[in-house]
Every structure is written in structure tokens, then in C-alpha cells.
């Protein structure tokens, strides 16, 4: 541990580029407000002082998709809303992630009918699903931490293969 101590004394940290990039992406991931229904209340309460999400980097929720990284789809998506959701997702710049919050966004929830998408993954590709109706703020924060684990393990070669 000698050289790290020496470097630490000089104020130098060594790491990998991937590590730094992923670390910086997780430490300041701004979600886009996409609260559609009841799950939005739980999302708001997760942002509120009691279960603060800005401890985890989600300092503020951006209403504009151009300025956000994460889309938390909170609530049921109806057939009429689907194209709007897709358009907002397309307007988000890379890198972007989607978190499907609650049962309705994950699988249609209690609404198993013609008017509601049975899972928002019919419209946008989802990274993390959070179950619950609505999920408690702690469950949403756990979902966010899971997403952070996923982001931390992202490799450049996968991103290069995708492009």
C-alpha cells in the first residue's frame, strides 16, 4: 500500500477511466419527472426530506428531458400516453436509463385491459423494475441503488458494441 499512501499524501488518486466515468454518472443522476399516477406521490415523498433522495445524487428532478439522465416512469401508461412517453424518451440524451416504478409500469399492475400498456417495457427499454403498489420510498431508493450497481458495472466495450 506504499505507493497509494505516497500518492494520497501528494493528493493523487489512481483509478480506471471506466471507474471514474461510472462513478460520476451515478453520483449526480438527475431524474426526469414522469409521475403519471399514484406512484408519483411516493416518488415525491422519496424526494422529500424524510427519505431524501438527494443524498444519492438526485438533487433535483428536471422537467425537461434534455437535461435529465434517468426516467422514472411512475404510474400506469395508457395507450394514449404511450407515444408521448416514447417521444420524451427519445429526447433524452445518452447516457440514459429507465426505472419502471410500481406494478403498473412493470407489468400493467391491476389494470389488465385494453387501455393500459401491460408494462412500460412495451414502449421503452427498462433497466430496473421496482415492484409495489405503490412502492415505499425505501423500495424506490433500493431500486435506485440497484441501478447504480448496474451503472457501476457498465463497460466501455459494451457501449461501443451498442453504437
Amino acid at each position, binding site marked *: 500500500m506504499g505507493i497509494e499512501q505516497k500518492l494520497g499524501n501528494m493528493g493523487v488518486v489512481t483509478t480506471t477511466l471506466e471507474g471514474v466515468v461510472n462513478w460520476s454518472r451515478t453520483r449526480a443522476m438527475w431524474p426526469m419527472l414522469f409521475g403519471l399516477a399514484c406512484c408519483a406521490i411516493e416518488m415525491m415523498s422519496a424526494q422529500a426530506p424524510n427519505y431524501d433522495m438527494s443524498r444519492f445524487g438526485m438533487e433535483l428532478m428536471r422537467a425537461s428531458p434534455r437535461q435529465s439522465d434517468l426516467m422514472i416512469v411512475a404510474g400506469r401508461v395508457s*395507450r*394514449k400516453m404511450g*407515444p408521448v412517453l*416514447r417521444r420524451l424518451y427519445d429526447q433524452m440524451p445518452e447516457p440514459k436509463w429507465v426505472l419502471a416504478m410500481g406494478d403498473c409500469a412493470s407489468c*400493467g399492475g391491476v389494470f*389488465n*385491459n*385494453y*387501455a393500459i400498456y*401491460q*408494462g412500460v*417495457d*412495451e*414502449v*421503452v*427499454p427498462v433497466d430496473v423494475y421496482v415492484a409495489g403498489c405503490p412502492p415505499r420510498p425505501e423500495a424506490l431508493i433500493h431500486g435506485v441503488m440497484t441501478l447504480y450497481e448496474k451503472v457501476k458495472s457498465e463497460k466501455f466495450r459494451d457501449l461501443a458494441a451498442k453504437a
Partner: protein
Amino acid sequence: MDNKLEQIVQALQEKFKAQGEEFRGEAHVLVGAGQIVEVLTWLRDQQNFELLSAMTAVDYCPQEEPRFHVVYQLTSVANNLSLMLRIPVNGDKPEVPTATGVFGNAIWREREIWDMFGVRFAGHPDPRRILMPPDWEGHPLRKDYPLGYEEPQFTFNFEEIDLRKPYAKE
């Protein structure tokens, strides 16, 4: 039935040849489609029924002919009365004159009835779908419309349903 309401129902029966019935304390009157605008205007102006509280439709297929009943719920705030009007409408090309001239709030309720049941309103200023996407085919609340549900994925049929689900790729 309330005394005042009795009188109004009697007057409707005489004047417009409507048919009054009662069910569990609620009075409803069956009116023909051609007379509805007259009846509504008379009730609003002469009998103080200022508020159209509800307007909806019911599908009685296949038990009853005619198939649809368009239901108007009128409320008189001044006299504390509530009256229901029903129009029986046939199933093929159902059409009813619009009530937007008489009660302004009928505009969206008629759009909803058009969207969900397919009952046209002649003379409606804005006939488009209100709840379903504008290019949707079919009228969801009719009795012969399929439920449109998805089979629940249990462990034993998980893969086969998974293959059929339309996932979004990127």
C-alpha cells in the same frame, strides 16, 4: 316520489307523451330521441332544472331491444329535485340530437358516449374521441367488445408468453 316530482313527471307524460317509471325511489322518464331537445329546454326553463349532473349511456345487448339507453340526470338546485331521462336508441347507426345547445356541459359527455358506445350526436360541435387514442377502432364499453386482457404469466407458461410480448428494443 316527491310530490313536486310527481307533478313534473305527470306534466311530461301529458305534454310529450313520455313514459314515467319509478325504481327504488328514483323517477325516470323514457323519452323519444326526436323530442329530447324540447324536453330538456322545457325542464330547464319552465321547471328550474338548471343542472345536467350526469349524462351517460347503457348497453343492454343482448337482453333488450333497443340496445342503448342514453341517460340524462337533471338536478334542480332551487327545488332540490333530481330527475332521470332515458332515450332508448337502436343498435345499428344510433343517433341522437345533441344537448349542447341546452346544457353547455353536455359537450364532453357526448364525446365520451361517442367514444365508448358509438352513439352519434347530430349537430355536435366537436365530434372526436376523448378517452381512447384518436385512431382507435371500436367502442370499448359495448358488451360485445373483448376485454382485451393479457394472460397472466405464471412460472409454467412464462417463456411462451414472454416470446409473444412486444418488448421495445431501444
